[in-house]
């Protein structure tokens, strides 16, 4: 028993030392960190973003890197949990000594990470957290996507002006900052346009039965249901809505953007609409080049989150190149000065609040995939 314990101890110690040795930085490389949900219930978010970042970094390094140094990304998995995201951020900063952080997708997790990055003055760029609170946390927190007040109003405009709907019900995920934010901004714009929210119901992430909420919604006879949740729950909601005989379309946000959505929902989700960051049908040359490179590397079509991951890495790389010196202050200033950067998801200009103002696209879920309908400008 004792010998066994000594054995274990020595294995642990050797592992520990080998880890610490590996994390010491090389003079010829620039180390940045990434935190994402590679596993967990929003795994496709983390994996897609990671692939986008990886593709961007390999392209940058193939062109000679930044200031003659190669760019290296250390990626940590947070399993889709805010507390794990915070721990991972702390580890990247204190142990791996990264000079900048990319992440997270989900607003709840970015909100957990941002205070740590801010206290340590490490610039952080969130590729796709849309909740306004994320960048309000401090001067070192940026994002390259639009924010929820805009995204919520996009769907409200679309429902009112394009679909000509007057009565909409809402089904929000109360445990999710993103979902609550979107639902609130949708309500604000939709009622301002003289539309009526007939019922505002809620669920908690992880639920599997939504029939009681949907039955209550059905009784109010809405013309559409706004479900600003993540794809796993939305898939089940669509399925159960169909079982209850609800035929109106569902409306949603970029949290729907995953191939798993149609896998879980089946044909029940066809004919529904959601807002997103980019469309694969965009014919611009740089967009099509990105889609081709991504397909060559991973064999799948990149979703919006992959595109944002790619853009976030490119914006950061450009800022690192512009920065006069590779310290926190100069990098932060360089990121803040990003203006008219041509990204896959649109032109990126970081404003005074460290947000990005971009147009959104509305996609329709069809049997053949996500079809582009229209672009809504801020």
């Amino acid at each position, binding site marked *: 028993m004792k010998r066994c314990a000594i054995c274990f101890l020595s294995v642990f110690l050797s592992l520990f030392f080998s880890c610490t040795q590996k994390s010491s930085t090389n003079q010829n490389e620039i180390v940045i960190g990434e935190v994402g949900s590679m596993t967990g219930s929003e795994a496709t978010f983390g994996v897609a973003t990671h692939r986008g970042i990886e593709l961007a970094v390999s392209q940058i390094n193939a062109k000679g890197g930044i200031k003659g140094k190669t760019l290296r990304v250390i990626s940590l998995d947070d399993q889709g949990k805010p507390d794990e995201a915070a721990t991972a951020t702390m580890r990247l900063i204190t142990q791996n000594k990264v000079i900048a952080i990319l992440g997270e997708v989900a607003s709840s997790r970015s909100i957990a990470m941002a205070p740590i990055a801010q206290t340590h003055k490490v610039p952080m760029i969130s590729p796709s957290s849309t909740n306004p609170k994320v960048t309000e946390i401090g001067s070192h927190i940026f994002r390259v996507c639009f924010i929820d007040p805009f995204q919520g109003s996009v769907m409200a405009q679309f429902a009112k002006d394009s679909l000509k709907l007057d009565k909409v019900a809402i089904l929000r995920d109360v445990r999710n900052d993103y979902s609550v934010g979107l639902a609130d901004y949708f309500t604000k714009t939709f009622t301002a346009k003289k539309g009526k929210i007939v019922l505002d119901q809620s669920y908690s992430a992880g639920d599997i039965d939504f029939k009681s*909420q949907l039955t209550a919604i059905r009784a109010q006879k809405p013309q559409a249901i706004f479900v600003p949740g993540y794809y796993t729950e939305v898939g089940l909601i669509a399925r159960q809505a169909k079982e209850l*005989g609800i035929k109106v379309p569902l409306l949603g946000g970029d949290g729907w953007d995953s191939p*798993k959505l149609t896998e879980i929902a089946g044909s029940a989700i066809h004919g529904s609409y959601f807002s997103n960051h980019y469309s694969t049908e965009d014919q611009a040359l740089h967009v099509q080049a990105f889609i081709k490179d991504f397909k060559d590397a991973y064999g799948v079509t990149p979703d919006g989150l992959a595109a944002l991951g790619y853009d976030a890495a490119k914006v950061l790389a450009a800022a690192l190149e512009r920065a006069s010196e590779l310290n926190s202050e100069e990098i932060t200033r360089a990121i803040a000065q990003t203006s008219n950067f041509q990204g896959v998801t649109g032109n990126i200009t970081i404003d005074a609040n460290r947000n990005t103002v971009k147009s959104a696209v509305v996609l329709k879920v069809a049997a053949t995939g996500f079809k582009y309908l229209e672009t809504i400008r801020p």
Partner: protein
Amino acid sequence: MTEFIQHLINGLSVGSMYALIAIGYTLVFGVLQLINFAHGEIFMLGAFVGMYSALFFGFGQTSSLLGLFLVLTLSMLVCAGVGYVIERFAYRPLRKAPRINVLITAVGVSMFLQFTGQLFFGSDPKFFPQIYSPAGYWSVGSVQLNPLQFFVLGISLCLMMALHRLVFHTRMGRAMRAVSFNHDLASLMGIPTNRVISYTFMVGSALAGAAGVLVGLTYPKIEPLMGVMPGLKAFVAVVLGGVGSILGAVVGSLILGLAEEFVVGYWAPTYRDALSFGILILILLIKPRGLFGKIQIEKV
């Protein structure tokens, strides 16, 4: 009115899902006086075995009743095996240990299975293949019924009846009741108690496995942590109905399912889980033996 009836049907269908998990729970408790917290994880395992075997045999492209029964049987067999292993290696060595040690072991086994599940299956949700999906929906007025729900309810009822027959009309059932009545006395009468306990565990686990497949079929999103909440809810249902009573577990589950449904439908959806655990606290305070619980005299 139609809304009310729809809620009633939804509530019963959720309740029957809890019932399937709860009867296995209560069976094991009746014999061992052990709250097997790993029961929810065996339920999860049942769903994953169902998914992988369906994918392996290529079911799910077309709706086939035969396929479903094959998958169901396979999943019940595997879960029975896992149940046996858990009992043999985690609980039997502690047969003479204080109750609290066994309880803590049960929590440990539950966590072990959760995290092993995450390691092997990955923690992202998987889609459960639609092995059997009856076409169309039945509608009576504007009340919509999913035939699948009735089908699942039917299978659950069959399993419950089979269990009732097993416990009250077979030799093994008599032995199980004897062991549950008095463990030491039963062994003095020549009943192989260890074998009876193993058997009970296997039956209980097989029921959990069946529940996993049937829940996967109706809510086709499965993940390694899917057993936690239903496991806790089934526990509440068991306490509500009276621990150790099979009828009590079924009635408790239906009451819980309906109560949750009406809270969400007519009041505030966020209070669904609060309600379940509120019921647990109330029952423990007012009627600790539950609705159908036997009054037991604590022997000194």
